[in-house]
């Protein structure tokens, strides 16, 4: 027969372990949410493959990098890592054995993640099914296959350290900055990339052509591009989380971010990101220069472009370019159309596309690809027209540019 104290101790222990299990569950749930915010799945899961088993090929100017297995398999995944090891990777960009990680892993952003959040993500990754799948060696050209080169890159471009709140700004702004600069790793695309594959802090969020993908990631600081200074917070929240808004839609690589990451974030976090992003664009002039394209009646290109537009585009985007938002996005006053780089509007005309299917927009309206329908001259004319009509202020596009983008990779 058990004595009362032992029974009591048993109850107490059972209570404690139940509480511990509840704590674990809460930690894992939080980690899953944060892993969504970090969009880990985009690189560490092959489409149609096992969750977080890696193996996704990523083309870089230096060769092909294959993402790694981050399931808890002890041999081929990260099953033998400790929370310290994981934080070390996130914070310092080094493997537990001290080896250097290629900066395709956005540790330049993840270094800003707090220890607490890193631990939660690690707990979540420990909870997913382990998958035995050995990592595929990278296929990098000489001299980039020498990991010691990463040391030089780190000296130039890597600044270790957790996010430091700006005490002059609101808690919401700081939360948004933490998510955008840290887990969101937005600067990986939205900053100019130099020939060394690095981006300097002073040019953070100034936009740039994404290497190998031939999509232009617009500047988040300039209102001439995707600077959101003139947008309402609600419009920014819609764009990020729903994928469509009354001002425009996400497309290309940004559709992936909304699909895999942003649609899962809660209202407070997306709102915080919107507040921070809006502040990045505030105070920059909305671009005073004129496009330099003569008035429509004076330009053959523009009147040709207008004919193409009214034949193929106006039924959705409307003759006056106002579209039918949010389903068919407006082109008038849409910064995405007028950016200095015309890569994105040309590619949208050639390839078409759907905004991502999201919880709040599960059945998006798609844009037809016109690559087969329109000639290079027609593409150039219609993109020139939409960049100049209705008060838009983009520069003209050449047939050669349209032709070059026909062969751009579409994935």
């Amino acid at each position: 027969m058990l004595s009362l104290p032992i029974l009591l101790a048993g109850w107490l222990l059972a209570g404690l372990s139940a509480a511990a299990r509840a704590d674990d569950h809460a930690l894992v749930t939080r980690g899953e949410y944060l892993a969504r915010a970090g969009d880990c799945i985009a690189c560490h899961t092959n489409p149609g493959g096992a969750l977080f088993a890696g193996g996704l090929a990523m083309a870089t100017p230096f060769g092909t990098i294959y993402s790694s297995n981050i399931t808890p398999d002890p041999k081929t995944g990260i099953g033998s890592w400790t929370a310290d090891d994981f934080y070390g990777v996130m914070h310092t960009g080094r493997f537990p054995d001290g080896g250097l990680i290629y900066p395709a892993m956005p540790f330049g952003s993840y270094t800003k993640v707090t220890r607490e959040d890193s631990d939660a993500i690690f707990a979540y990754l420990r909870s997913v099914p382990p998958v035995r799948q050995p990592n595929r060696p990278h296929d990098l050209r000489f001299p980039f296959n020498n990991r010691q080169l990463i040391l030089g890159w780190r000296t130039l471009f890597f600044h270790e350290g957790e996010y430091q709140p700006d005490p002059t700004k609101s808690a919401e702004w700081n939360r948004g900055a933490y998510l955008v600069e840290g887990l969101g790793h937005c600067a990986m695309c939205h900053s100019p990339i130099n020939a060394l594959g690095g981006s300097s802090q002073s040019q953070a969020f100034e936009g740039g052509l994404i290497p190998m993908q031939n999509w232009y990631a617009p500047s988040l600081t300039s209102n001439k591009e995707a600077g959101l200074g003139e947008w309402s917070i609600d419009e920014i929240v819609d764009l990020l989380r729903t994928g469509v808004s009354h001002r425009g839609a996400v497309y290309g690589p940004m559709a992936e971010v909304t699909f895999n990451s942003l649609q899962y974030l809660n209202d407070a976090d997306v709102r915080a990101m919107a507040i921070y992003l809006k502040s990045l664009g505030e105070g920059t002039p909305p671009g005073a220069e004129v496009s330099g394209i003569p008035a429509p009646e004076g330009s053959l290109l523009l009147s040709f472009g207008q004919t193409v537009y009214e034949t193929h585009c106006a039924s959705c985007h409307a003759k006056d370019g106002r579209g039918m938002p949010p389903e068919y996005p407006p082109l008038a006053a849409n910064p995405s159309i007028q950016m200095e780089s015309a890569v994105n509007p040309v590619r949208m005309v050639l390839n078409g596309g759907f905004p991502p299917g999201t919880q709040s927009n599960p059945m998006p309206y798609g844009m037809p690809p016109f690559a087969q329908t329109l000639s290079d001259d027609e593409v150039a004319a219609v993109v020139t027209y939409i960049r100049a009509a209705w008060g838009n202020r983009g520069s003209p596009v050449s047939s050669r540019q349209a032709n070059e983008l026909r062969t751009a990779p579409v994935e």
Partner: protein
Amino acid sequence: MSLTLGSPAAHAQATERAPDTMEARLRACEPCHGRQGGGTNSDYFPRLAGKPSGYLMNQLVAFRDGRRRYPPMNYLLEYQADPYLQKIAEYFAALRPPPLPQPVADVSAAVLARGRSLVAEGDQARGVPACSGCHGPKLTGMEPAIPGLVGLRANYISAQLGAFRYGTRTAAEPDCMQLVAASLTESDVTAVAAWLASVPVPPDPSPVPKGTLQMPLGCGSEPN
């Protein structure tokens, strides 16, 4: 609706909304697959209308996940979830636009006869099953996932048989079409494609119900 700082007042005016229909959502499909998925004059783009929804769903998922390689389709479907793809599949499966005029076959009568024989009877000696064994006596397919073969162009059919053979188009295991395509010679493919493209589309191109046909080989896409 919120007014935006610094934006023109016109911005806040109510604009027309897009129709809340699948047709309006799927205008992206029209340039290649025609209005209502009825096909176009282009040789390489298939008609979608009337194919079984299970087949269309399998293809949409295979394009999205890269199991069937065609970059323009892989790109369009990359960020769509299963429930929408299912709706798209059901939408096109239910449509019955009139068939397009069929081009006249540009092969000899002997090649057409060879194609007809392969389609209807296969080649038992070489282990090639008849197309009609799975795709139906009228070649309109079988629910839920075997497609009809009528109303398609010869170039599209031969391109698909090539894609099965070279692994750029794959399906759930056992991948029956990969086995069938691998057993065909180049001249078989030409003959089968020419004959199929010449078969008139029957007045009711609906697939036969599930289980109507005793399939000669196992097929991961059409579990019994």
